[in-house]
């Protein structure tokens, strides 16, 4: 079955460390805030990128979210994890920026099927093995990024949080303010849509094809 990273598991030691850091920051040791945020900086950036689809905007929003978390740390209640609270701030900031930019007008019209209905896979190409070095190739990374960019926002944000950043389904629901059932439905659709897009291109030994270039002998 799927292997998840340690980030997803409730780690008591890590939670205790966070609580202690938060207490010290609230008592005046503000310089420790960077250490509190550092483990989640990637998650903050990816959450912003999921909504904005633009690196420069995502970086801006990520910075704004971190600063906002710092200035509002006293409002953080330990009812949720610090990381969940931080990502919620990021998502809200990104949504506000989207509204200002009217980004909804430029969303892909990929979501032609109703979310309530069952998704029917369109491709049945036999795509079995992935060599571990596949991601070293920039054309593969570009292909995956393009496929992800073609998903409608509601699928992209769930997929990025869950499958790219390994946030738990419950936390994803909390951060996006939707139900757990919606997260599961959108996640299933996102995965199947991405498979439909990628399988025809990556199946049947695509990975083993080495592009013939000068000085690169194919034998």
């Amino acid at each position, binding site marked *: 079955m799927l292997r998840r990273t340690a980030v997803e598991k409730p780690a008591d030691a890590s939670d205790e460390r966070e609580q202690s850091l938060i207490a010290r920051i609230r008592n005046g040791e503000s310089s420790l805030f960077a250490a509190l945020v550092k483990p989640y900086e990637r998650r903050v950036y990816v959450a912003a990128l999921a909504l904005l689809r633009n690196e420069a905007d995502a970086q801006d929003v990520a910075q704004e979210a971190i600063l906002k978390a710092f200035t509002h740390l006293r409002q953080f209640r330990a009812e949720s994890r610090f990381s969940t609270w931080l990502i919620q701030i990021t998502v809200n900031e990104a949504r506000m920026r989207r509204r200002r930019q009217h980004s909804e007008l430029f969303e892909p019209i990929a979501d032609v099927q109703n979310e309530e209905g069952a998704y029917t896979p369109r491709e049945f190409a036999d795509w079995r093995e992935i060599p571990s070095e596949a*991601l070293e190739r920039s054309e593969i990374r570009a292909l995956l990024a393009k496929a*992800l960019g073609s998903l409608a926002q509601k699928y992209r944000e769930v997929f990025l949080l869950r*499958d*790219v950043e390994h946030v738990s389904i419950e936390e994803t629901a909390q951060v996006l303010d939707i139900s757990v059932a919606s997260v*599961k439905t959108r996640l299933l659709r996102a995965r199947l849509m991405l498979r439909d897009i990628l399988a025809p291109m990556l199946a049947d030994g695509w990975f083993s094809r080495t592009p013939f270039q000068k000085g690169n002998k194919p034998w």
Partner: protein
Amino acid sequence: MVVECAQVWLEISNYLEDEVSPELRASIEAHLRECRHCTAVLDGTRNVIHLYGDDRLLELPAGFTTRWQSRLAEYVPSPRGTAFGWLIAVAALALISGSFALARLKSPSLSALRSYHAQPATRIPSGMMVEASVNGKTFHVPGCRFLHEHGKGKVRLVAAAEAIREGYVPCVRCLREYLNR
């Protein structure tokens, strides 16, 4: 229980997340043995999760950490002190510098590196707070999962300079951006 293709597609995520009942799992697996289409859908979905779950796919933009930390530093209030406080601070600094100089005379080199295969830390800001386990060899950014995954005794939060003095070496994963290139 016999399941059809449509039901297998509906449950593929739950199946991969190990969130189906043993009966449904057995039925899906029986179906998969007979159905090439569903096997292809399952393999492909697993590949999607595998590929996108890899950290190499989406890397942080260069300088991202430095930029947000610099902006944050503008917001962090700098401690203000009285003249007496400054006097105490200067005296303490002189005392500390003296003891360092004395210690250096007695033992001119740093502790030996705890790991012979590691890269010594040279570019890490000395005031940066890091975590190191008592019996470990490396120090980490607080919260680095590679520290907690391999738990090696009690973890301490110390300044990078102190960790380096004690012979710890930087984690090549969480402190990659500070290592020599």
